[in-house]
């Protein structure tokens, strides 16, 4: 009991655990602990006594979010390209799903469900790249990558042979295919042993 009480006391005045968990996911690398330690020290010694708990927590969250671009910059070119492709397809799928609901043409329910399920893959990829998911969760990304390539290629062929060629559909299908290919390449490299998706420098 005494040990538990000490642990609780040690955490009192410390940064909120969920946000600490977030920063530990965002910052992976040799110096992650030094940066987290700096923020912890500033929170405990300066910010919390000066601002109080709620405002100090907001300050801490802002600092953590300000470190996201640094996490992205420290990733390799291929992973940055994958992140850009994922964000593009994620935005496109959300936009398509919203448009389906607004226009409500026949079969819109099926198509919006498809849009949402396709959006799940880039969403998972963005989370994997920024938060450094476990190797176990990565197995699902392999399946997602293959599915993306299949959907992207099929849409690309269909749209090219369609009498009503649509430029936006063409762009999205290319982005989806590229994203799937980049995912496969990244996952293939991470499977070589030293890196996981979102970690390392390749």
């Amino acid at each position, binding site marked *: 009991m005494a040990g538990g009480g000490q642990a609780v006391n040690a955490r009192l005045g*410390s940064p909120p655990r969920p946000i600490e968990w977030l920063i530990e996911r965002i910052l992976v690398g040799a*110096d992650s*602990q*030094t*940066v*987290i*330690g*700096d*923020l*912890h*020290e*500033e929170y*405990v*010694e300066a910010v919390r006594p000066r601002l109080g708990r709620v405002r100090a927590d907001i300050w801490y969250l*802002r*600092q953590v*979010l*300000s*470190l*996201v*671009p*640094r996490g992205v*910059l*420290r990733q390799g070119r291929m992973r940055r390209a994958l992140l850009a492709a994922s964000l593009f397809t994620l935005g496109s799928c959300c936009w398509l799903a919203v448009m389906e609901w607004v226009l409500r043409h026949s079969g819109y329910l099926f198509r919006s469900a498809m849009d949402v399920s396709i959006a799940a893959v880039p969403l998972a990829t963005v989370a994997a790249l920024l938060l450094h998911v476990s190797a176990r969760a990565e197995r699902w990304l392999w399946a997602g990558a293959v599915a993306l390539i299949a959907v992207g290629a099929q849409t690309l062929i269909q749209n090219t042979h369609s009498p009503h060629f649509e430029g936006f559909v063409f762009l999205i299908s290319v982005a989806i295919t590229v994203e799937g290919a980049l995912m496969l390449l990244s996952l293939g490299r991470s499977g070589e042993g030293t890196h996981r998706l979102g970690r390392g420098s390749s």
Partner: protein
Amino acid sequence: MAEFLGTFEQAVLLAIMRLRGDAYGRMILHVVMNSLKRTVSAGAVYTTLDRLESRGLVHSRVDEGTPARGGRPRRYYSVAAAGARALNESHKTLSEMWSGVQWPVEVKR
């Protein structure tokens, strides 16, 4: 060829010089905020430190942590010879740009 330094990079390098042996992330952030007189995010300072280190303008070493940091280590920074040269060059360039102009600048209407 001389290194080109932005204002923020100069602020970070000068903060490291002012702090001497006590230049680690948190203290650098404080000094940079004081010298620029505005709020600065930790992300901006660490990204700049990464860039300066990759350009060989600063060196760093890791030291032991303290209880206030949850036992996490500290990374101390020092200005490298190339960093000092770059600062001198920036100061010289700025002085040359200002030569012949009276400060504070006034515009006659």
